[in-house]
């Protein structure tokens, strides 16, 4: 019987909290906007891949091969275009197939598989666009397999379903001019997708820690005593930021140790049979060789900047609210917003240019993606803009935090609706 009023009180405490309501509004508005952006990204990707033409380098011009290609071309709506070489083909088309010299021989020889080479050019960080393009390469491979079966069936007057000619497509992905195997590309896309999310989460958690520490200090009533001491407020702010960064790093370390344990557990399965060919990727080699040491260095730098940025943001929030409950209500949407911004850039597949460099510079979370791509494509102006703005915005937000610590608001708090703090005297 006593539970009901207790629950009602708890719920009322939440729903009558302006910060809680504001956080809900923020989340709904932001993710509504993000949904539209992702939808636009998917639509763009579909449009890009629907009408895409495929270059074909023909190294076997036998009648059989020409018949297969002709049939495949008819089936796909005339999108196959003969090109002289892979390089010239990739200048005009995003996907290029190589029909090898022994194509017809292997196709007509029973028990042999057909080997095709596919080259896919990807100039986008959008997983939707790149997924669609690599998917198209598989589709073409399948189309050729079916065309081969059909042509053989017609020539020999047998049922096409009785012919099973395996087609192996060896894909090479050209990502911003760097060639990668499909396995390397998978690792690269995982890196590009995972890193902004990781930074966004770290930034969100760091902002939460910083705001909670600051707000709790206010609740503990030690805050005014500390502010009355002969310490520059700048030092108090910096100490709070550094404290939250250290806590976040400890938490991050524990998180990665946990992940490592999961991975170690997952890989401690019996070794595969000897005849199974395993494809190994050396992550260090991939990151160093394909992405470059400088990009990785900048990536680490962007984590440091992200921590300072989010720490200062958290300190600002914690210093203007009255308690950790309101601080928590404010910082939760910040975590989602960081994740949202990081993913919006990736999902929408925005081109890496000065505008996206500016967005990344001001919001930090998508910075690694922008830095890695602009470095790989030698777009130095984008690199310079994004890093300079990231530095500037981090410094500005720290200055803002120090400024707030020198104002009345740090003592009186923000006066929101019914939570107005009356000056007690």
């Amino acid at each position, binding site marked *: 019987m006593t539970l009901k009023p207790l629950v009602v009180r708890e719920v009322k405490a939440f729903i009558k909290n302006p910060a809680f309501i504001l956080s809900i509004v923020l989340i709904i508005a932001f993710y509504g906007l993000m949904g539209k952006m992702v939808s636009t990204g998917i639509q763009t990707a579909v449009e890009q891949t629907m009408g895409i033409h495929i270059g074909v380098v023909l190294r076997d011009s036998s009648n059989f091969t020409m018949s297969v290609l002709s049939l495949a071309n008819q089936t796909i709506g005339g999108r196959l275009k003969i090109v002289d070489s892979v390089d010239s083909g990739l200048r005009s088309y995003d996907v290029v197939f190589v029909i090898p010299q022994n194509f017809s021989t292997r196709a007509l020889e029973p028990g042999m598989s057909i080997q095709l080479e596919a080259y896919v050019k990807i100039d986008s960080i959008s997983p939707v666009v790149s997924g669609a393009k690599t998917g198209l390469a598989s589709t073409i491979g399948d189309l050729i397999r079916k065309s081969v079966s059909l042509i053989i069936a017609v020539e020999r007057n047998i049922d096409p379903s009785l012919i099973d000619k395996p087609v192996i497509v060896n894909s090479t992905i050209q990502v911003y001019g760097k060639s990668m195997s499909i396995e390397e590309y998978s690792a690269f896309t995982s890196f590009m997708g995972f890193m902004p999310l990781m930074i966004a989460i770290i930034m969100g958690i760091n902002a939460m820690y910083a705001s909670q520490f600051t707000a709790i*200090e206010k609740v*503990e*009533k*030690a805050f*005014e*005593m*500390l*502010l*009355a*001491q*002969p*310490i*520059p407020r700048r030092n108090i702010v910096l100490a709070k930021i550094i404290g939250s960064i250290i806590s976040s790093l400890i938490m991050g370390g524990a998180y990665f140790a946990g992940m490592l344990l999961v991975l170690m557990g997952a890989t401690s399965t019996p070794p595969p049979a000897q005849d199974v060919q395993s494809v190994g990727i050396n992550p260090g080699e991939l990151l160093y060789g394909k992405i470059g040491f400088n990009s990785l260095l900048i990536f680490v730098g962007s984590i440091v900047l992200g921590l300072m940025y989010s720490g200062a943001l958290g300190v600002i929030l914690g210093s203007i609210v009255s308690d950790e409950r309101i601080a928590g209500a404010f910082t939760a949407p910040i975590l989602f917003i960081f994740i949202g911004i990081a993913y919006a850039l990736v999902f929408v597949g925005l081109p890496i240019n000065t505008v996206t460099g500016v967005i990344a510079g001001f919001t930090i979370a998508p910075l690694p993606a922008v830095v890695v791509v602009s470095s790989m494509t030698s777009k130095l102006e984008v690199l310079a803009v994004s890093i300079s703005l990231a530095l500037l915005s981090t410094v500005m937000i720290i200055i803002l935090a120090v400024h707030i610590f020198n*104002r*009345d608001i740090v*003592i*009186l708090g923000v*006066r929101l609706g019914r939570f107005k703090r*009356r*000056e*007690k*005297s």
Partner: protein
Amino acid sequence: MLLNPRVLVLDFAVYTKALTKIYSGGSIGVKDLDLRVSSGEIYGLIGPNGSGKTTTLRIIATLLKPTSGEVYVYGVDAVRNPLEARRLMNYLPEEAGAYRDLSGLDFIRFMLSVRFSGRRLEEAIGEAIDIADLGRDLNRPIRGYSKGMKRILALSVVLASRPRLLILDEPTSGLDVERSIYVRNLIKRYNRDYNVTVLLSSHNMLEVEYLCSRVGILYRGRLLAEGSVEELKSKVGGVNLEEVFVKIKGESS
């Protein structure tokens, strides 16, 4: 003969001129407050809730910025040079607490380490430990302390820092009788032995009568009357400070 304003300011531990604080929304914290606290005295601010006591103390302690007016602490402009002013004073807010995850000893060390170092720090820590008189409890986390223990702990830190000006906002609020007496005696002792000027606010008239050499009565942000307890009594014909307060407030209303 014209007085040199700088000399005038230096003569007082606290000197405010036309001090005004208007909060956003228009509510008045203090209005045209001219407060003079002499070096070495214990000055008490009394007044009902919302009269501007905490606002005044917070402005002097450099926690709030005045809307207009001047504040000097031993001649240092507390608005323009807050850091320098803070070196001369210490402030105990009302209901001042402590970091709950620290032990009492760690709290003392932390708060004093921002002012002192080396041998002087160790001396100050020793002094604070003596004042707090919490025995083995000093090694326990503060989260387990009673309100009175936290109050004594906070007070021990501000006293052991031996500031030239000590600002105490309702120093015995929430304390039991024994602890209240202990705190009052400490304030008296530090004022007498170390010449610490004390500016305090209180709702406890007996406490103010016992401690303060001069008293200021604040009401709606204005200083209605000021003087020694005896002067105020004779001025309005009251038998005690409570009566003085009620009469002066009545006249003002």
